């Protein structure tokens, strides 16, 4: 959050305040007129996405994600603020000048949005035709793209002859046609089955690593963020309520919205219902300790006996994320009050502790 504040303060011109930024949104709002009055889809939002990263934007439906992603390539124009993409301030340029900018930003969609009247090859060739590539170069490029996504043998098929996963691969090939520096993925796996989702995410990872394309992943599935993103912003009511590395947001969500998303994939922290049950079954004090690589929860607990305190692990789990361990353990502590206080204080010295108040 500090970094964002700095950019807002420092930026008055159109060049990005951070040398590594590829996308910067400053104080961006987008309102839509509706029969029931103005609806604010994006509300004074600041965001900075770095060159080469996979940036996740997560939110519930209606949080403004789809609008937000369309502000980046100007499919929707902002109401106020500033959007800088690849050094270009796209908030003020007219539609006609926006087209060449858009051509350098790939986009894939939940419903794939392939052209049904064109073959797979025809779909991939379309952006190249728009960009004015001559026929021979176009054919070579289409072949190259189709082999990259593993669909060269389906070049002459029509979209309605493909499976969902294949359609999204065609969508990715089409989006990459003009060698974009940015790929916007709008719920790109939301209509795919779990196995196909894995394939498409692997392909996106490959696009990011091998081609160096910055990817903005819009999703309502925290699992997608966990698997693919480097950093994540949590969107609620058109605002970024929380952002950080995926590890930070997963290991220590600060807002209820972030916490709710995290708990959809991680079940290591007891929910309200779980806590009620635990409290009814256990008479001691119940604390939940965050566990990371260096939190030493076990060492502290092994000394609990010296204070006359017994402990029981009653909930929790530890998993790994971005190459680091994290999770949480819920522990019941029984014994003299002073002893229990000492153990909790010792735990607190090493990690974050939540106590379930009865």
């Amino acid at each position: 959050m500090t970094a964002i504040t700095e950019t807002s303060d420092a930026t008055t011109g159109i060049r990005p305040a951070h040398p590594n930024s590829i996308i910067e949104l400053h104080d961006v709002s987008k309102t839509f007129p509706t029969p029931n009055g103005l609806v604010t889809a994006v509300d004074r939002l600041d965001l900075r996405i770095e060159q080469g990263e996979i940036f996740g934007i997560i939110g519930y439906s209606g949080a403004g994600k789809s609008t937000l992603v369309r502000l980046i390539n100007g499919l929707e124009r902002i109401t106020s603020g500033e959007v800088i993409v690849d050094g270009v301030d796209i908030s003020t340029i007219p539609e006609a000048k926006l087209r060449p900018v858009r051509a350098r930003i790939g986009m894939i969609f939940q419903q794939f949005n392939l052209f049904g009247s064109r073959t797979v090859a025809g779909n991939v060739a379309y952006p190249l035709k728009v960009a004015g590539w001559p026929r021979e170069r176009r054919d070579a490029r289409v072949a190259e793209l189709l082999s990259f996504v593993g669909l060269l043998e389906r070049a002459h098929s029509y979209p309605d002859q493909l499976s969902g996963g294949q359609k999204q691969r065609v969508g990715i090939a089409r989006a990459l046609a003009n060698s974009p520096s940015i790929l916007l993925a709008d719920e790109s796996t939301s209509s795919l089955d779990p196995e196909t989702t894995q394939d498409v995410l692997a392909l996106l990872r490959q696009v990011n690593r091998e081609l160096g394309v910055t990817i903005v992943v819009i999703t309502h599935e925290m699992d997608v963020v966990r698997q693919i993103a480097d950093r994540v912003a949590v969107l609620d009511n058109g605002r970024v309520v929380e952002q950080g590395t995926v590890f930070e947001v997963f290991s220590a969500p600060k807002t209820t919205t972030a916490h709710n998303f995290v708990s959809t994939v991680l079940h290591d922290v007891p929910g309200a219902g779980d806590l009620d049950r635990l409290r009814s079954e256990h008479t001691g004090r119940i604390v939940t300790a965050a566990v990371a690589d260096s939190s030493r929860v076990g060492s502290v607990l092994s000394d609990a006996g010296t204070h006359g305190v017994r402990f029981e692990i009653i909930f929790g789990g530890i998993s790994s994320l971005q190459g680091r361990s994290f999770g949480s353990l819920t522990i019941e502590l029984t014994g003299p009050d002073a002893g229990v206080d000492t153990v909790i204080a010792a735990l607190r010295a090493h990690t974050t502790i939540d106590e379930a108040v009865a």
Partner: protein
Amino acid sequence: MNEGWDWDLHTPLAVTAVTETLYMVSLTLLAGGGLGLVLGIALYTTRAGAILANRPVFAVLNFAVNIVRPIPFIILLVAAAPLTKLIVGTWLGTSAAVVPLAIATAFGFSRIVEQNLVTIEPGIIEAARAVGASPLRIIFTLLVPEALGPLILGFTFVFVAVIDMTAVAGIVGGGGIGDFALSYGHQRWNHSVVWISVGIIIVLVQVVQLFGNRLARKALRR
């Protein structure tokens, strides 16, 4: 005494009538069909939220179509006479009949075009915009190809409707099968002429519909 098909009298007349009908129908479809396609695309692309959204233009076009379309053709045929005279030089005859025919066709077909374009998934247009395609390119390289199947069926429907409309072209001396059936059949109480004319029209319509269905199937790849 007028009963029956007089081979020497009726056959050459019928051939002329069929030629006149085909002449009127083809010119009408060319002019009215082309105009209708443009008008339909304009209606679709200028509506709110569309790629060339323009409220005043849409309002004017929409109003014009709503005004012209309900006019019964037989009245339009006469009402358009001053305009016909301006374009063709006379308001009588086969060529003159094409003007009101083309007007009715253009306005009628425009709604069919608009309706078919509306069924195109908006996401497809968004995908084209996202790769930097201009509105005109989207219209000609995407909208028309994506809706081609239904557009061909719509055009076939209009084709048949035009054959129907030409039947009253006799009012302005347009001739044609309908006129032949009325003046040599109905007015002389010669039912053979009426029924044979009807038969010719049925065959004509069947051929056109068959052809249209084939083309549409090909466009839809089904």
